[in-house]
């Protein structure tokens, strides 16, 4: 089969690989019909995530058709059209039993601080991902769901991570009616978080980025007020001014490890890999939220330390909520929102790239060419 493989920082190519095999009785093999590149894949692509090996296939956002199932699989059969949450999880450990699917303890030998994620380095379990023609899906009775008949492939795909994570981010903000919600980052997760904040009764939603075309999308898709931080000397002061010097009730960090805006922070982390992530956005979040407010962290950070302004968080009495999203937990409610027309997830899709051209896809997304927001990957055999 054809699969994207990592060759080293900033280098990927398509190679011929063996079709994955059933390795556990509850495995399924899925023929991928649609995949995506995620902002967090860029951390791998840039070589920032420890234990990212040459030959590894990325891709934690994919949907497909069941090709083969293991002997203990009860809920799926070949031919089923399924969506697969980006989390690999067992459904039965201490954490899964409590709904913490992204923190599963039974699927990642390489680390206890993070669960299993498809195509996200050995630090996340060493599972090959879905930017390929076929993928192995462990715990087929737990993770995948049948795609509802009425749902678009692209919408289903976006539920596997970006939409679920954005919506989860708004939930972790614990928004109450009339709250002012600031979202750092107008990428897919930020756009969905901003949109979801309204569902939870936000009185005001402000989105911050430096890419003008993404801010335009935030105004149009997420009905948000926007600020371009590159046009302001100090975005924290702008947020204070915009909120009557109170600060926002809730701030969502939808940027994560490669935040821009501080040259030193960015270069020491994204370029020189000396930090687990550039906490520029997180520090802005901590300083922009009001005292007693809530910061919800959705951006991905690596396992190394980051220079976070912890004193401010303490002295302001903040609540910091964060986790990788347990994607499937969000699905029933998200399906209702999509069905009721509260949002159309694939409004944010900008590029549909054949698997053969995935190297260009990574470059476009990484260098933010061509007004890219969300690039999808289409395997030819799909």
């Amino acid at each position, binding site marked *: 089969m054809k699969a994207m493989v990592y*060759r*080293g*920082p*900033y*280098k990927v*190519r398509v190679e011929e690989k063996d079709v994955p095999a059933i390795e*556990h*009785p509850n495995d399924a093999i899925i023929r991928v019909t649609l995949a995506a590149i995620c902002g967090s894949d860029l951390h791998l692509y840039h070589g920032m995530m*420890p*234990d*990212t*090996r040459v030959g590894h296939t990325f891709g934690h956002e994919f949907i497909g058709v069941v090709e083969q199932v293991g002997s203990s699989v*009860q*809920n799926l059969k070949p031919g089923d059209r399924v969506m697969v949450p980006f989390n*690999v999880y*067992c*459904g*039965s450990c201490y954490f899964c*039993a409590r*709904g*913490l699917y992204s923190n599963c303890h*039974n*699927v990642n*030998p*390489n*680390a206890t601080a993070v669960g299993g994620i498809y195509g996200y380095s*050995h630090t996340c*379990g*060493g*599972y090959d991902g879905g930017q390929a023609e076929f993928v192995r899906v462990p*715990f087929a*009775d737990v993770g995948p769901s049948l795609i509802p008949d009425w749902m678009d492939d692209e919408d289903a795909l976006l539920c596997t991570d970006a939409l679920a994570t954005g919506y*989860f981010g708004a*939930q972790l903000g614990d928004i109450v*009616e*009339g709250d002012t919600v600031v979202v750092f980052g107008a990428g897919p997760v930020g756009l969905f978080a901003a949109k979801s904040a*309204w*569902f939870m009764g936000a009185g*005001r939603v402000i989105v911050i980025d*430096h*890419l*003008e075309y993404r801010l335009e999308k935030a105004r149009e898709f997420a009905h948000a007020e926007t600020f371009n*931080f590159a046009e302001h000397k100090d975005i924290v002061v702008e947020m204070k001014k915009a909120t*009557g010097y109170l600060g926002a009730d809730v701030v969502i960090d939808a940027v994560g490890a490669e935040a821009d805006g501080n040259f030193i922070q*960015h270069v020491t982390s994204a370029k020189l890999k000396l930090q687990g992530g550039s906490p520029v956005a997180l520090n802005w979040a901590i300083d922009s939220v009001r005292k007693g407010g809530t910061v919800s962290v959705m951006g991905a950070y690596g396992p190394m*330390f980051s220079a976070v302004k912890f004193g401010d968080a303490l002295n302001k009495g903040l609540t910091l909520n964060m*986790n990788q*999203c347990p994607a499937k*937990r969000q699905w029933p*409610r998200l399906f209702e*929102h999509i069905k009721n027309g509260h949002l159309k997830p694939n409004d944010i899709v900008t590029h549909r790239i054949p698997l053969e051209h*995935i190297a*260009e896809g990574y*470059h*476009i997304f990484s*260098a*933010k*060419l*061509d*007004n890219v927001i969300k690039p999808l990957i289409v395997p030819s055999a799909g």
Partner: protein
Amino acid sequence: MTYTARKPPLARSSDQLRAQIPGWGVDLDPADRPAFPQERYDPDATGAHWDFPERQTAHGFRERSIEHEFLPPVFGTSAPLHGVSGAVRRFAYARFSEARAAHWLLLLGADRIDSTGAHLRSLATLRPDNPISETGIRAELTHHGLSSRRGNRVDTRHQWIDPVLVAGPWVVGATIAVKAARRIARTKARATDPA
């Protein structure tokens, strides 16, 4: 406001927002938010029909964090350990917990050894690493490389570092190789020079 007990007023009332924004307030009731609070004990909700999963067979050595009591029942099988990078990774896993910076720095170092080794090995194959096709740099021509960078973008201020980081090691390597070759040639010339 702020300096008094009142909250700064909002521009739009809830009724206005409900009228103007699709889906406004549909999840106002926390009961409609499926993942907050995050922890909810509901072991029957997952579809798992086992107390502890059957164990996947490990083919050969499978590294694991020393913060795990044993090898978890299910694991990924992409890119098993091999060569020098494999030895470094094995050491990082065997010796240091996830709490130690050394663990992660060794793994990052192994990543660089791995990709450098793979690159060198590829030169001896029918499909050597191709810096043009594998970096996707052609997209600069087909997807508005120049015009995309117009405007107030802060990432363009450091994008110049990317080619330096990617090409830099090869330029340095080539320079060292050329210098070494010259020195050898000169030494030989001197050795054969009768003067």
